[in-house]
């Protein structure tokens, strides 16, 4: 209704979401955003799940091309494996947006939740709370793209503040992640009882660290700073005496919506810009407590910038109903 062609007949428009990662709350919420925005537009959405198989993900782009879709959202993946596939889609006349993966293609806008900013904001809060000299534990597994980007912020902050001592680096992606990291964090706390800040820029890590801190009875001494948020994280942050001081996050559902909107703009001949950034939000324990926020829904309603990002918008754009 009132949308420009081809969206004036949205039932005939087919878009595909080609995913690299799918397991976990973030990805589920992201998918929810994609689905609801697609539903608001009325387009036909196909989902391809490669389950962390980068080679398969590239094939899936080809499959989407073969299916004759009009637009493709590439969600995560590796630059190297997706670059060619994305180019093939563009060559086939398909509109493509990429989320959180750089496919090195000027015809493809990049939607990003700035991982660097996530790390940066969390660390700024840590410095605000703890000053510029403290002993920190850092949870990091190299080789994982978003974690690597968050690591850049940590390295910068460390160089800028020589007072910040990195007492221990640990972390693992062994499943169940929170539990395994709790075990490691316990050992680290035992070996370094003078740590006061834990930087765990991934909420699964933060959860593990929190368990360890609780078990070690060091909740008063230690503050945890992390990235990402979920309903479970909110309740963990709000537990009485929780060491989890703050997290920085974008709303994954909003990111999903933005991806679809960017694609819709492209389909109608518009240009959302080569880089669409969904700004992250700082969420502190104090804020959660004072507003009595229980879940992601509450967070959205108390924090409008978390509920909706005013990016990739057009005046004809229908938004999902809240």
């Amino acid at each position, binding site marked *: 209704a009132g949308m420009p062609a081809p969206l004036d007949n949205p039932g005939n428009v087919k878009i595909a979401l080609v995913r690299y990662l799918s397991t976990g709350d973030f990805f589920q919420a992201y998918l929810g955003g994609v689905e609801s925005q697609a539903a608001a537009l009325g387009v036909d959405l196909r989902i391809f799940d490669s389950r962390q198989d980068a080679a398969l993900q590239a094939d899936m782009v080809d499959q989407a091309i073969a299916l004759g879709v009009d637009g493709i959202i590439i969600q995560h993946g590796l630059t190297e494996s997706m670059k060619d596939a994305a180019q093939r889609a563009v060559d086939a006349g398909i509109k493509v947006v990429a989320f959180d993966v750089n496919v090195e293609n000027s015809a493809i806008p990049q939607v990003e939740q700035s991982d660097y900013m996530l790390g940066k904001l969390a660390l700024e809060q840590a410095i605000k709370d703890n000053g510029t000299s403290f002993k920190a534990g850092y949870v990091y597994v190299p080789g994982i793209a978003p974690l690597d980007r968050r690591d850049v912020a940590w390295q910068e902050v460390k160089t800028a503040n020589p007072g910040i001592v990195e007492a221990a680096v640990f972390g693992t992606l062994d499943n169940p992640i929170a539990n395994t990291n709790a075990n490691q964090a*316990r050992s680290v706390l035992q070996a370094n009882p003078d740590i006061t800040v834990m930087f765990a820029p991934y909420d699964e890590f933060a959860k593990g660290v929190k368990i360890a801190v609780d078990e070690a009875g060091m909740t008063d001494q230690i503050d945890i700073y992390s990235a990402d948020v979920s309903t479970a994280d909110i309740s963990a942050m709000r537990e009485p005496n929780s060491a989890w001081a703050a997290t920085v996050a974008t709303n994954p559902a909003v990111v999903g919506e933005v991806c679809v909107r960017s694609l819709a703009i492209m389909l109608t001949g518009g240009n959302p810009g080569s880089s669409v950034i969904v700004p992250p939000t700082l969420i502190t324990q104090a804020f959660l407590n004072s507003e009595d926020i229980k879940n992601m829904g509450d967070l959205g309603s108390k924090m409008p910038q978390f509920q909706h990002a005013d990016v990739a918008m057009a005046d004809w754009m229908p938004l999902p109903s809240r």
Partner: protein
Amino acid sequence: MESKFNARYLAIRYGFLALLAGLLIFFSIFANGFAGPRSAVFIFQSVAITGILALGVTCTLVVDGFDLSIGSVATSSLMLSAYMLVILEQNAFVAVVVCLIMGAFVGFLNGILIVRMKVPDLLATLGMMFLLIGLQRVPTEGRSISTGMRLPSGEVAEGVFSTSFLWIGRHRFDFFLEKLIPVSVLIFLGVAFLVWLFLELTRHGRLMYAIGSNERAASLAGTNVNFYKILAYMISGVTASIGGILLSARLGRGDIASGNNLLLDSVAAALIGFAVLGAAKPNALGTAIGALFVGVLLQGLTMMNAPYYTQDFVKGGVLVIALVFTFALTARSHK
């Protein structure tokens, strides 16, 4: 067994334990904070869950089977307990009982597939694994379960992880030191003791070893082979669900996770158990020590600030060397 208690015999029997002792001494000296009762308790705690799972696998190994589904049973039990508590708003007792029943039931199904349908054990339990990995995600459409979550129906889940449930994962008993021993460690020790008792000292355990060694002969001697095989898988299912409950109580939420690492780590523990005391066969004591061995190694390396990838490497290396040592010696003495 020869009369001379010679060096080789000692090496076979105590080589692995000596290695463990060596590691303990090494880490006590070089890893800051490693020595001490609290640190020891961490080690126990960190291996409690894999250890419990490994004890279940041991039972299936004894009847010459193998259970690949334990990891997914544990995560299913994790999700199920959270579902019971948070969404169905049941109390801790109900949640625990339902999880245990689920574990026993999955084990029963595995057993039926294997003894009645004659599906090879690896295959049956692999199928079960995939089935459970999928199934555990269906009720919440792949979301983790926690208080306040929005259900697919649009409602908000009001149930909570009750304190009595969290107690299982978080309480610590005083023991000389205040708040020293977590419940999970006691459960691990309890399960280890029970499985040991069962396998080594009861006639049922002996018959299970008989089945593992020669199923036909055991059957012809009047052993109810099918019963014991199903029993083994049920024990394995129950222990895996205990593991899941402990995980749930520790995490305080129904965390969508794959149990791959749980599976591999507990299989590792059970297999390392072969080498303990020169048993060269699955045994409960060995499994428990195998689990502790891995725990000691990881704790020590973490404390020495070793990067995570060196941990796998050292784990693999020490494992291979220890086992070569034990098995090469055992084999030679059997000649």
